[in-house]
């Protein structure tokens, strides 16, 4: 009975991973298929790197890619600042004010992206019209995509940082104040270092959320392309495996980063384990000496 259950669990886990990864494998394989135009793995017409060559030569796509990265960096930067500040603020108030602030921040996650995109675009252009201003901020463009994306991605950062704040020992802040630190010094030397892991995770999540964003960008971008917009337009006008080649490269880079992160995490864990072992030895020694 136990054995059957174990087998079933393995089969389920295997099926799950298979289901998750199969599209990526097919998509990656299509990048190497020597087809004429449409990305596919059947019929397999032999391996080729010609789509990577085509990718290298596709200026419009590189431009879209560049835009995507710029937008993602800007979104990550602003979201981290806004989200962290919001988390610290929400953590320091209580009662109705806290509920109101929290609700306001979170609501943007629940609002459909298309609505955020349209309302961002309408708000800024209307303000521009009202002021009779032609200032760049008031016209659609990638800067509005950044602002639109930040309005919900910052809330994700806020959730991550807020969770980390729960484990912050208020006593550390008091200790630092007691030793003469100003509130700014407490923030820089005590609170932010504690939050860095969450802020780092928030930056990574923001970056990837921004890269994959389509709907907010679609309504705010003006004439500029990002990768998702470009792929979408290609689907209509005729897609080629150059997209697969680009996706394959992104997967490789992501995998490499994930592996590096895991290695670093394991190294940190073993360093920390060694420290704790040393503390135990010191405690044992202490007991013996006294």
């Amino acid at each position: 009975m136990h054995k059957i259950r174990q087998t079933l669990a393995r089969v389920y886990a295997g099926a799950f991973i298979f289901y998750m990864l199969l599209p990526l494998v097919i998509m990656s394989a299509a990048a190497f298929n020597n087809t004429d135009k449409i990305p596919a793995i059947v019929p397999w017409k032999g391996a080729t790197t010609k789509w990577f060559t085509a990718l290298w030569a596709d200026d419009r796509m590189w431009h879209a890619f560049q835009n995507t990265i710029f937008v993602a960096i800007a979104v990550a930067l602003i979201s981290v600042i806004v989200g962290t500040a919001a988390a610290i603020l929400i953590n320091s108030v209580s009662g109705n004010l806290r509920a109101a602030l929290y609700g306001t921040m979170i609501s943007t996650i629940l609002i459909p992206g298309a609505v955020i995109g349209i309302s961002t675009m309408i708000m800024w252009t209307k303000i521009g019209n009202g002021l009779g201003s032609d200032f760049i901020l008031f016209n659609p463009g990638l800067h509005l995509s950044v602002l639109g994306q930040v309005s919900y991605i910052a809330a994700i950062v806020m959730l991550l940082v807020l969770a980390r704040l729960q484990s912050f020992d208020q006593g550390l802040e008091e200790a630092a104040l007691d030793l003469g630190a100003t509130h700014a010094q407490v923030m820089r030397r005590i609170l932010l270092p504690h939050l860095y892991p969450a802020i780092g995770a928030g930056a990574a999540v923001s970056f990837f959320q921004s890269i994959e964003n389509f709907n907010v960008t679609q309504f705010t971008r003006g004439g500029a392309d990002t990768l998702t917009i470009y792929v979408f337009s290609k689907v209509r006008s005729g897609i080629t495996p150059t997209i697969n080649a680009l996706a394959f490269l992104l997967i490789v880079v992501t995998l490499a980063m994930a592996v590096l992160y895991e290695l670093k995490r394991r190294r940190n864990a073993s360093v920390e384990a060694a420290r704790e072992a040393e503390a135990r030895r010191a405690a044992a020694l202490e007991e013996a000496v006294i």
Partner: protein
Amino acid sequence: MSAGIDLQNVCCDFGSFRAVDNATVAIKPGEFFSFLGPSGCGKTTILRMISGFIEPTQGTIRIGDKDMKGQRPNQRPTALIFQNLALFPLMPIWENISFGLEVRGVDKATRRAKAQALLEMVDLPGAADKMVSQLSGGQKQRVAIARALAVEPKVMLLDEPLSALDLKLRQHMRAELRAIQKRTGVTFIYITHDQGEALAMSDRVGVMSQGRIQQVADPREIYNNPVNGFVASFVGENNIFAGSVSNASGGMAGFDTALGPFRARLGELAKGNNIKLYVRPEHTVLSETQAAENSVPVTVSEVSFEGAFIAVHGQTTTGQTIVAEVRNDGSATVPEIGAARFAHFNAAHASILPDTTAAGA
């Protein structure tokens, strides 16, 4: 270097709850002063008012003749050692110790040297570059002391810093704290609920209950001459006899109790006053014959071996339990359970206090 602290009629209210009620005490420069009391007695609130985390509702706090009103914690010449130590886990030890100097803009080389000197003082010379998680409980304790001393405070405030340590280490650290206090000459204000700690370390002790300071005196005075029932029963053990003054002459008095007449010092009471007699177990002697005075027949009901002494419990005819402590000096004879004895105490060893429940005893 060190400064005195003057509390004048300090009160602290949390809503309708008065945590500290009219506390007045003058702590001398360089003194090791303990606030002793059960949890919730207001001792930690007093400490937090001195350090500036709580403003008193009424009254003034002066540190070295300077009124602390409106002074925030980072502006006061105090350093607080927290109950959980609150060491900064993400900084190496030397940065922990020199944090107070860092925020004052002292350069790195000076900070490093100062941290090293302090580490040597607390007997941890090799720990500068370690992290907090590498240290044992006692070592963390020392780092916390070094960190507080680094800012050269005039007053050190210690909030039950030894409570997390096990017994042996706690006793060791007591002696060490006392030695550091003597060496540095800084005024120490120590908060504890452990009477042994307070009595062993302090120059003077302030016993607190229900927000009030009950008695301020040196440890011997607190133990030998408690001013009220709370102090008598909180500090050390007692056999308590309730009764009233029946006659008084020449500083001595006779007392009527349910167990018969007793004689002891009168104090400031008059005939007819309701009183309680407090007699320490170590001042209670068990003998086979009845003594001339202050002798009560008991039946031995329990014998518990405590190591340095043996506690013998005797049951009186009224059902009260009297505890006598016999020093375990090798010649001590311990009665069997059920044996008939007389519990006796010397008239000079009893504390007589008015019988009131106002002190919350």
